[in-house]
């Protein structure tokens, strides 16, 4: 990646939505937009799982916190809950909600992590698993007596993201080039993804990042070297959660609609799969994992369904469960045969190899 001149890479990325639009159709630009969201999520989880070695199974809950944050403050919905206070809802700007959501999600990460981080990693996994489920129960049930989340129906009519007076939900002309909404979101998500990559990259090389990796490899040794393991683990957890919150906000604005269904356990597991399959702790590996897994359902839909119809005349295995089956098998296979992932970081691969030799 580093060998290509940067401006060529930039040009390719900038032209990408147009190329996809022309070759595959506009629907695929939307799919790629979603893939970018997933990549952001996966990079956030990578901080927790990949760098600090803490297994978080309820990561999607932080995504949900961010999404609902924007859904509540950026839609007419609050008028239903508090008609006197907000007669036509609170329509906060996206740029105001973004830091709020990041802080809120990060704070929740700290609250959740604090009781478990003193204990062994397995407990954290279970607690986060439970937390993900609890958040969903609350989202599903907080429609009475005060209608806060609108229950299973979810919140719709969320304001589209608006930047510098320009709504991203309509085709905009920039320098005489008409940019459809999906293209605009592509560039927005690209900016954020690049930001996340940048932050991850800087973190990895920083004192904090090295401390995280020391904790991941051997917590006792790390604390003997003077690392405050508890605070650093909390920081990893909060940071990952904050990234999740930011992606959630973007998701709500892009989709214009949120419901508890989007935040099921399977989504958490899918993000985890991206990190594990791609290569825990390796930014490019995680991006590859995110891209692969986010595009896979579409590819399956376009390949498996017609294939089954041609072979058996009907659909025997629906692509959704086939996808999950493949994920599950892939998780097992990767852990058994390629524990550092498909595209591991060179350092990590070396570490795992020496582990085997011992």
């Amino acid at each position: 990646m580093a060998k290509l001149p940067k401006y060529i890479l930039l040009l390719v990325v900038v032209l990408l939505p147009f190329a996809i639009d022309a070759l595959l159709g506009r629907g695929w630009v939307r799919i790629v937009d979603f893939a970018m969201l997933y990549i952001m999520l996966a990079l956030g989880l990578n901080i927790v799982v990949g760098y600090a070695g803490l297994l978080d199974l309820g990561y999607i809950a932080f995504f949900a916190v961010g999404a609902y944050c924007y859904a509540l403050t950026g839609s007419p919905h609050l008028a239903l809950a508090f008609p006197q206070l907000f007669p036509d809802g609170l329509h906060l700007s996206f740029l105001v909600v973004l830091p709020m959501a990041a802080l809120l999600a990060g704070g929740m990460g700290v609250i959740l992590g604090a009781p478990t981080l003193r204990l062994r990693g397995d407990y954290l996994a279970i607690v986060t698993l439970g937390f993900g489920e609890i958040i969903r129960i609350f989202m599903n049930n907080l429609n009475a007596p005060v209608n806060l989340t609108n229950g299973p129906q979810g919140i719709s009519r969320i304001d589209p993201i608006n930047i510098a007076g320009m709504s991203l939900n309509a085709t905009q002309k920039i320098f005489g080039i008409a940019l459809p909404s999906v293209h605009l979101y592509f560039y927005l998500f690209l900016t954020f993804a690049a930001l996340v990559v940048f932050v991850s990259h800087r973190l990895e090389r920083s004192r904090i990042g090295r401390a995280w990796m020391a904790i991941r490899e051997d917590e006792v040794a790390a604390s003997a070297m003077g690392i405050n393991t508890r605070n650093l683990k909390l920081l990893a957890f909060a940071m990952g959660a904050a990234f999740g919150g930011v992606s959630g906000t973007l998701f709500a604005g892009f989709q214009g609609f949120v419901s508890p269904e989007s935040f099921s356990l399977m989504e958490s597991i899918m993000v985890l799969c991206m990190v594990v399959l791609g290569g825990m702790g390796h930014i490019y590996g995680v991006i590859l994992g995110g891209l692969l897994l986010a595009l896979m359902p579409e590819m399956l839909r376009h390949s498996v369904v017609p294939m089954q119809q041609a072979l058996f005349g009907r659909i025997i295995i629906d692509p959704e469960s086939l996808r999950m089956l493949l994920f599950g098998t892939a998780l097992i296979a990767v852990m058994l045969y390629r524990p550092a992932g498909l595209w591991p970081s060179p350092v990590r691969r070396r570490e795992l190899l020496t582990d085997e030799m011992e």
Partner: protein
Amino acid sequence: MEIFLQQIINGLVQGSVYALVALGYTMVYGILGLINFAHGEVVMMGAMISLSVLTALIGIGLSPFLALPLSLTLAMAGCMALGYGIERIAYRPLRHAPRLAPLITAIGVSIVLQNLAMMIWGRDYHSFPQLFSNHTHQIFGAIISDIQLIIVIAALCIMAGLMLLIHRTRLGRAMRAIAENQHAAQLMGVDVNRVISITFMIGSALAAVAGLMVSANYGLAHYYMGFLLGLKAFTAAVLGGIGNLRGAMLGGLLLGLIESLGAGYIGDITGGFMGSQYQDVFAFLVLIAVLVFRPSGLLGERLAERA
């Protein structure tokens, strides 16, 4: 008062199922120090297998008194094979790998089992066949049905049997020895791999029984039931002190009671703001509270009793 008693009864019935599942978690944890995430899905498979065999046998006109044990045996056999396979494929190769690795394979196994079940049995709820007229008994105004009575008694018998197995037999001694120190046990001539396999199989057999009990109690089974059940049973194991058999039983019963009383009274406590739909939140709150205040669980100190 009647409502209170009724909630106690419901809690005990639910709690004995949790206890059986929690035993599976705790036995594996005691021996390997590993949380068998896939255990909840084994319970689900047990429920689905026994239910479909039962329905088929009743369908060909077999007497329920013959069909029930037969389906249970088949489910237990299936689950034991499953437990053995899971340990062999997903855990054994990773016994010396970093801690994260077996956790991730366990999640993989759960997903695979869940989706296999969905492919085999579909997304629908399967209802438990009406086997015999389910009499109900009145105790001080509260109602307990035959099935519930059987569940509690059977669970207690199984737990007593398990205690005997662990404390009175050669196999049990081998299990305790491995829990104490795997290498030392190996040097003393214990076939560690075999004992670990057997432990997984016993846990899975208990899971099959629990699965049948849950579906009989609620009259329902479906492919997604294992997740929440597993989470709660794990909470029960932690509450009692993970790795401790008596702790798992105590924790299971306690958690059942907490849940049932909590769901029964949450409406009154919060002035109607929250209702019984928040029942599932209690297990989680208990888990957090235990981890904060007493991470070793209620009976966690008596390490000598670890199985």
